[in-house]
């Protein structure tokens, strides 16, 4: 399978001083399910924003289907349209992403920009609302929704564009267990439907559920390792080193003990 995304030695610094990414080399194949994991502040969101053409690397190159994506390139209307319909981005905070008056307007925003036929756009919006179970919310203003509903609407607003690549930034963060498992199933269903899914997270349960390929970002903002989920989740030394698990005291029945704590090696259910 061909590479759909290629990052070649990408580095990025905020204000030219605070390093966020260092020399990142990453290839993502079409239809791949990739999780980018790392502790807080390792550069996961920055990496996703570079892949969405929102930030541009201080050095290195970003290719989409072999085309180099630069700030200059994205100023061209044709390239911008190609890029934005190809890559959808779910922000961590749905509040900043939703800006239309109602839920339905949110879902129609993308298709309208593509100048899609009104009936087709309406059908797409309806199908996506049914898929996500948000039909009842369609006339509601987005600020009247709960966090989980906002997340679903934000995702729905991207899906109506039918993007080939979905970039999801901490999709399950701060959601209740039911919404979390709903989103996990949704990601698996979309992956099976052929979408390339790239998730930035520090939630190892999500990685375990998705059984994706995993790229581990270290606290030095570099790629520490790339490999399948089983291999990465089984590598406790690596997870300890990159601050994704830690050794702490806890209780099992009457026994209290301390050891590196990952829910995959010792506590798997």
């Amino acid at each position, binding site marked *: 399978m061909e590479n759909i995304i290629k990052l070649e030695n990408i580095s990025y610094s905020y204000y030219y001083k605070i390093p966020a990414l260092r020399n990142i080399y990453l290839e993502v194949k079409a239809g791949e399910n990739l999780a980018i994991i790392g502790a807080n502040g390792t550069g996961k969101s920055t990496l996703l924003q570079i892949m969405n053409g929102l930030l541009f690397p201080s050095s290195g190159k970003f290719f989409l289907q072999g085309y180099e994506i630069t700030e200059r390139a994205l100023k061209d*209307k044709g390239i911008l349209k190609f890029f934005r*319909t190809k890559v959808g981005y779910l922000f961590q905070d749905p509040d*900043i992403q939703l800006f239309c008056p109602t839920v339905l307007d949110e879902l129609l925003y993308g298709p309208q920009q593509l100048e899609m036929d009104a009936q087709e756009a309406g059908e*797409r919006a309806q199908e*996506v609302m049914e898929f996500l179970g948000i039909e009842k919310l369609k006339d509601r203003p987005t600020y009247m929704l709960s966090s989980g509903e906002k997340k679903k609407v934000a995702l729905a607003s991207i899906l109506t564009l039918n993007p080939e690549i979905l970039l999801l930034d901490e999709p399950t963060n701060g959601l209740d267990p039911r919404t979390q498992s709903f989103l996990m199933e949704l990601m698996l269903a979309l992956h099976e*439907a052929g979408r390339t899914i790239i998730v930035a997270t520090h939630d190892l349960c999500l990685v375990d559920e998705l059984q994706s390929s995993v790229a581990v970002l270290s606290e030095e903002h570099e790629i520490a390792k790339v490999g399948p989920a089983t291999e990465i989740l089984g590598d406790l030394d690596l997870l300890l080193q990159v601050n994704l698990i830690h050794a702490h005291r806890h209780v099992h029945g009457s026994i209290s003990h301390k050891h590196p704590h990952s829910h995959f090696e010792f506590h798997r259910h």
Partner: protein
Amino acid sequence: MKDKVPSFLKKPPPLSFLKPSGQRQKISFIEKGINYLAVIIETAYAQWELASREGLLQKIDARIKVFFLLFFVFIISLKHSFAVMTGLGIFFFILAMLSKLNLIDFYKRVFLFSFFFGFLITFPVTFNFINKGKVILPLFSLSQPYSFWIYQIPQEVGLTKEGLQSMLLIVLRLANSLTISFLIIYTTPFPEIIKGLKALKIPDSILMIIALAYKYILLFAQTAQAMHLAYKSRLITKSPKEFAKKWMASRLFILFKKNQAKGEEIFRAMLSRGFNNQIKFFNFRRPTWTDWLMGTFFLGLGILFLMA
């Protein structure tokens, strides 16, 4: 879940190829403004955060620097001599160098403000129909002098020596005041400036408001910037002006709501930590002999400038 996937999502996305159109995508000034505003505030905050601690001014106690700032602004406002202004400018330049600031960025900011708030505002006084004086740069001649409202327009219109001198002096004074203010801001962490202001007997409640406002400006800027990025990520073609206005209004509303909620949360957090309407800031360390030495040096130099 798998069975419910919409039919259009089950099909592979239509094959699309990158076709440059040759047409440039323009982003409206509203969006640009939001992004630049956020970037400026954030950069200023980071500049403070990252201010090098190795330089000369960074090592001096904030109180000494605040007094130094006020004293020198006082000198600048009293003196009307080019020599003193130039001398002060050279002194501030040396201080900026010894404080290891990025001189190009630093003076770019000083000159930008001096240009807008000094040069542009005072430029009209250089014309002889605004201020009478000796014309040293004639611009054009009229067939006869005119009287208009309170103005007398002479036959020969030009720039006067007195006008140019006044303008130059005002621009120099403004540039010097800005330089010394920026010098203090760039070399002093914000909490230290607050403590320095405390030494001037400004009430703690006012200082608390300033400190809180400054801190949450960054959060506000980050949210505004993230909103802009989120908009950009869904922008496929140029959106109509009407939509941009609606977007702006909806974002302002969301920002207002978020800030209101944040304000309430902060107040509850303050209450839970024992806040009882009495605000007290900690005092700060005792000045070292280096602080006193530098303070004396600044005072002596200031007196010399005053006497010059």
